[in-house]
Each structure stands twice: as C-alpha cells, then as structure tokens.
C-alpha cells in the first residue's frame, strides 16, 4: 500500500471537516466519471453505433469510422477527469512511434498496465488503434456492442487471425503482455508471447510504451474510492520500437527484461518498498 505521505499529503495541513469533505467530493467525482463511462458506453454501443454502422462502406471503413467516433468519447472522458483534477493522461512524446517508424506503418503496441484507464489513455493518443479485450469485457452484455463495433479483438481461439486482419486494415493493435493490470507496487507479471507472435506473423514493428502513474490510482489492489489528494498523472511514453525476432518466446522474455530496466522493480508504481 502507498503511504499517506504519497496518497494524502494535504491531510496534515487542513482541518479535518474541510479535508474529508474535499476527499469525499473527489471520490464522488471518480464515481461520476465511471457512471459517465458506463452510461456513455451503453448508450453509444446500443443506440448510436448501430446507426453509424448503417452508413455505407466496407467493413474496414466502418470499423475506422466507428473507432474514430468512440475515440472522441475517450477524449471527453479524460477531459472530464482532468477538469475535476482526478486523473490526467499525460505525454511528452512528439512521435508515438519511437525509433523512426513511419506514422502510417501499423504496429503492435505493447505496454505495462498500471491503471484501469490505460486503454482509454493510449487509445485517445494513437489515431487508429484497437485493443485485445478480455472475454469478460468483450462478452459483457452492456459493453459488447461497443467493444465489437470499434474493432477490439476478444481473447480466444481466433485472436491472432483477427488481430492480423486489423493490422492489415491499418489499425495498430494494443496488447498488455501481462494479461491484466500490473499489481500495485509491482513487480511486473510475466509477459505472455501473444503480442510478439502476432508481430512476427504479421511482420510489423512492435512499439514499446511505458506507463507510469503518480500518485497511484485505479490500480489492482488499491480500492477504487481511495482517491489521492493530488491529481493522478499517467504518463504515456513510447520508448522504443523493435522488429520481432524469430522466436516470440525469446522476444517476450527480452522485452519483459527491458521493461524491468526501464520501470525499475516496482514497475514505476510508487509506494513500493
């Protein structure tokens, strides 16, 4: 658990009634944002996307169109969280593809996964990107229409084939090789090799993105209502682009090691011993 000095630095300076009022309001703000996210996803997924899908075009055109539309929603979601001083997706990167990979070259994007809003953080930055979605999200009755219509690929038997098809359509494919969120305080989980196998088969570069969130927020093992006094800043940093090796097992292992070096043992999650 992160210490109070990291999470609640203002506690010492403010009178308790005022302090806890503000902290309560901040927790309510997070509740509001998530209500907005889920409400928006259901309304857009069930009402707006089916209409948007009727517009003529090939399947690829439709996926791109819907994906662009939904990305505006991600922007609004992050704008709200930033305005309420809760969470800010920050980047200093001038190019989202490190090491001179051209902007129109579809890539596999891999990242560590510190917070609940990493998919929206990364998707709002990259102009054409789909993610690999957990079956529990892809098959969730409320989210399903949205997740499918923006081209996200559910984990499963046809995952690699579908993801390869997205790359051919010109999408980047975002994969968290850990398979789920990095636990608070690290260490990183073992990297699965799916992302690297995909890049090898499709013969596309792999962009390595490092996420660091300070102070920690929306992390596994940290209850969602534990909102820190300061705004959580999730920094998105594409730090390298590599070509996939012949053995996805070896590539996965090497990339995992690279993340450990870049992030440090804690996975950059603050509050680690």
């Amino acid at each position, binding site marked *: 658990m992160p210490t109070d000095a990291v999470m609640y630095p203002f506690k010492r300076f403010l009178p308790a009634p005022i302090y806890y009022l503000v902290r309560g309001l901040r927790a309510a703000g997070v509740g509001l944002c998530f209500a907005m996210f889920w409400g928006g996803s259901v309304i857009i997924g069930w009402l707006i996307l089916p209409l948007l899908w009727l517009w003529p075009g090939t399947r690829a055109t439709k996926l791109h169109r819907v994906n662009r539309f939904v990305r505006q929603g991600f922007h609004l979601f992050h704008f709200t969280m930033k305005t309420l001083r809760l969470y800010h997706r920050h980047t200093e990167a001038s190019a989202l593809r490190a090491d001179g990979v051209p902007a129109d070259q579809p890539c596999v994007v891999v990242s560590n996964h510190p917070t609940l809003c990493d998919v929206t953080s990364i998707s709002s930055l990259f102009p054409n990107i789909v993610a690999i979605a957990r079956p529990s999200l892809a098959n969730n009755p409320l989210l399903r229409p949205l997740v499918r219509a923006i081209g996200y690929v559910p984990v499963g038997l046809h995952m690699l084939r579908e993801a390869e098809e997205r790359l051919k359509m010109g999408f980047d494919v975002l994969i968290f090789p850990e398979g789920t969120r990095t636990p608070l305080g690290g260490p990183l989980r073992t990297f699965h*090799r*799916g992302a690297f*196998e995909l890049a090898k088969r499709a013969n596309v570069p792999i962009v390595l993105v490092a996420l660091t969130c300070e102070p920690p927020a929306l992390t596994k093992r940290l209850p969602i209502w534990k909102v820190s006094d300061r705004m959580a800043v999730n920094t998105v940093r594409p730090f390298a682009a590599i070509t996939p090796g012949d053995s996805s097992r070896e590539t996965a292992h090497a990339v995992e090691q690279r993340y450990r070096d870049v992030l440090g043992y804690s996975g950059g999650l603050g509050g680690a011993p």
Partner: protein
Amino acid sequence: MSSSLYPEIKELIVESLQLEDVDPASISDTDALFGDGLGLDSIDALELATAISRRYDVKVSQDENTRAAFRSVKHLAEFIEAQRNAGHTNG
C-alpha cells in the same frame, strides 16, 4: 479405445508446436499440458487447437468442455473420440 490415440496425439503436439527438444514418448498421458506439466502457454493452445481440428476433423469451440479437454493427452484423446462418435451418430 481412445488410448490408441495417445502416441498420435503426442507426435502431433511435438510437430505442431515445434518442440524440437521434446521426445513424444516422454510426454505423460495424464500430466498437465499447460502450466506446470509440459509448460505450454496460451499461444500453444491456439496452435494445438488448430492442428487437432485439422487432423481429426473435429470442431474445437471455445467452451468449458474444450478447456477441460486440453488438460492432458488422455483428456484430448477422450474429447476426440467423443466428438467423432457424436459426428457419426448425427451424420
């Protein structure tokens, strides 16, 4: 008898997953294929599923039954037999 399938399945595993340093005969009938046992991972599962559906002309779908079938060589053999028999009675 499903046990006659064991050596075939073991060879298929080694062949389709290109496990060059594994002797098919050394794979246990009942030990776990994934995780602790043979140490296969999620991508191996996808490839093995494709190889099995091709070789034995059975339908590998994504459900609890299939997940159980991929536990070990023995489970796989029983799954393939069951699928074949179901196919014969239906067709």
